């Protein structure tokens, strides 16, 4: 259920961001499905594979897409269990995505290009720094709700009093920021740039072409949809009726895409050297939430 809706989201997600940015800059912009039309064109094309690469480079896009899809199987929908669910499944979710990223990174290193090496290095660094934030956040939520599976956490979390509102607000903020970092959006990365030296994600896939490139684009769009799904899951309560839930799920997703589009239109990107600092602050914010929950549950200062 969750997977299905997230895939539907992923269909229009990149298009909305693109359209918002276009409109904010005074242009009409392409249709919502233009990114997918581009992917369709790429799918019909052949690959150009550099002679210096090994099989790693060729399997990387497929592995990347697979891991993202597998991670999607763990994604719940409010009130519905995902395909797989078990205690601590969020760890698997995070590391499945990390595995895909790992393959993309070694695929980039495989080309031997100095650009891709730099991009891989940056991507690895930011993912590594964002990881503690993600786990502290889920640890906090697990502590608060007493569940350790994603479906358990999301079902048990309710906005009941001021304390949960604070935790909820911090968590939603963190989830949005982590999603932006993991999906290489601003302010950490600039998906629009044509300058290899400033790229992060884009430069890693510089050597991929045709079908492989399409796989990477599909995986990236899905990943974005999944993170959006995670946020919607977190915010939506279980006890609403199904149609209301579905509508509000998509409303949240669209709002998320609009937010990203606007943020990217009206601000500048961060200086690359300041990025690690920025990413790391997310972990400290997560720690604040963690301590807060310790106090709420009387495990500290109790």
């Amino acid at each position, binding site marked *: 259920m969750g997977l299905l809706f997230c895939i539907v989201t992923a269909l229009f997600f990149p298009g909305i961001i693109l359209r918002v940015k276009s409109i904010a800059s005074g242009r009409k912009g392409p249709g919502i499905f233009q990114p997918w039309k581009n992917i369709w064109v790429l799918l019909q094309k052949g690959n150009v594979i550099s002679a210096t690469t090994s099989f790693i480079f060729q399997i990387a896009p497929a592995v990347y897409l697979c891991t993202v899809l597998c991670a999607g199987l763990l994604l719940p929908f409010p009130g519905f269990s995902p395909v797989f669910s078990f205690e601590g499944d969020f760890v698997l979710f995070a590391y499945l995505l990390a595995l895909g990223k790992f393959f993309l990174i070694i695929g980039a290193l495989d080309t031997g290009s100095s650009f891709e090496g730099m991009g891989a290095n940056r991507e690895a660094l930011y993912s590594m720094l964002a990881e503690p934030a993600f786990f502290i956040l889920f640890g906090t939520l697990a502590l608060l709700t007493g569940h350790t599976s994603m479906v358990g956490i999301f079902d048990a979390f309710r906005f009941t009093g001021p304390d949960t509102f604070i935790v909820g607000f911090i968590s939603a903020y963190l989830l949005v920021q982590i999603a932006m970092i993991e999906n290489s959006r601003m302010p950490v990365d600039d998906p629009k740039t044509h*300058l290899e030296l400033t790229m992060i994600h884009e430069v890693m896939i510089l050597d991929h072409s045709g079908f492989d490139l399409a796989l990477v684009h599909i995986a990236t769009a899905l990943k974005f949809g999944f993170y959006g799904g995670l946020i919607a899951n977190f915010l939506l309560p279980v006890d609403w009726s199904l149609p209301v839930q579905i509508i509000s799920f998509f409303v949240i997703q669209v709002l998320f895409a609009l937010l990203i589009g606007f943020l990217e239109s009206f601000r*500048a990107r961060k200086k690359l050297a300041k990025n690690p600092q920025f990413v790391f602050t997310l972990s400290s914010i997560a720690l604040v939430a963690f301590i807060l929950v310790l106090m709420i549950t009387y495990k500290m200062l109790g």
Partner: protein
Amino acid sequence: MEERKYIELTGNPVIMELSDIPVLEYQEFRQLIDDLLKNERAHCLTYFVYPQRDRRQFICCMGMDVKHTILVFSHEQAAMNGLLLESITQRHFCFHVFEREIHENYGIGFIGHPWLKPVRFPFDRADQSITMNAYPFYSIDGEELHEVGVGPIHAGVIEPGYFRFICHGENVLHLEIQLGYQHRGIERNFIAKSTLLQRAILAESIAGDTTIGHSMAFGGLMETLGDQPVSPQMSLERAIALELERIAAHIGDTAAICGDIAYQFGQVVNEALRTIVINTTQRWCGNRFGKGLIRPGGAHYPLTPEIKLLILKNLAEVEGRFTQITGRMFTMPSVLGRFEAIGTVTAQQAKTIGAVGMAARSCGLMRDIRWSHPFGAFRDIQVDPVALPSGDVWSRTMLRKLEVDRSIAMIREFLERHDCMGATETPTNNMPLRQNSFALSLTEGWRGEICHAAITGDRGELVHYKVKDPSFHNWMALALAVRNQEISDFPLCNKSYNLSYCGNDL
């Protein structure tokens, strides 16, 4: 005694008999340069070889910024291969690129020059064995260092240039810039093309974004050599065109800088404003970059009252909107974080490398030909150039904003003085040039000082032509700006200078 060493000329453009250029002994020549460059407000305009049958005359022109004069002096050497001279660069680094050029073209060695690398690989270079693919890059050995090569095809598919970085992690230790891919033989073509019209078109194509700057320098030079000065009204029109070009280029660059820091709003607003300015030029002369507007002797497109009104109307709009967007830009923390203390070049560095124009003014070094060697209509107005001391990307972007404001004010002043009678002179194709003369013309294009020099022969024909675009000096500033910076800031630094590839390569 002093009189004999050099000829001091006032005005701009200047002209003199070729035989009047003092010829010094090389030792004396070097000593003179030492003496002159002790004065901080002197800088080398151009230094080139005029080859004759059995000898080569090395002509050097020095600009005195405060006295508003140009000094001309030279030395002569026999035309033989393998000539070795003591390098001037070892004491005055700003000569490095001139000596490299001379070395490349004539095979003259300079003892003590740090590295006589090729500049642009001309077809008739002295050493045919060197090729573009075997450029002698500087390299540093080290376990932790890596090299990154960018180009020669630019990521934005603009002009070609090759950049080789030596990096320690994300930090740049050294950047070397290899140019020459755009070499078209402009200087030779000036001699080869016989009609004035052909040459005027050639001058317009030296650097497409500085069409007016270069064609003004060329026009001034020809009119001086042909002894047919244009009317004050014509000069006003040219000055207006030059300032329009400056405004358009500066606003366009501001847009590009915003693009590089991913500030989409600033980018699109400035792009739209640039379009208004270049479209104004188009309405005036039919070309957005001002091609065909400035021709020796006059203009095909007089400044009519309608054009005047259009310029005033568009400038008012551009001024308002540009003030608004820059006000927003320069107060936005995320933008300032990408501008401040990035790509810093000190005033001392700028002086050492002989930076000119914007690159110099953004480091607090006041170099502006409109002020130091005023030409045309700039003689009659008060030009007070802007200079900012910090030398970083912020300073270069802010300088653009301030210069746009000044240029708008200047155009208004020029337009007030212009009567718009439409009775200006038309271009001529027949302009006999004075024989055996040397002439030099300077203009301040939007990048900086543009220098054209010409020498005529016995029948008044062109025998030598020399062009110097500001980028010729300023590329070095970019190489210095990115030192100890992050490699990811290179595109931003590059854009903040926006130097010309083809102006350098000729």
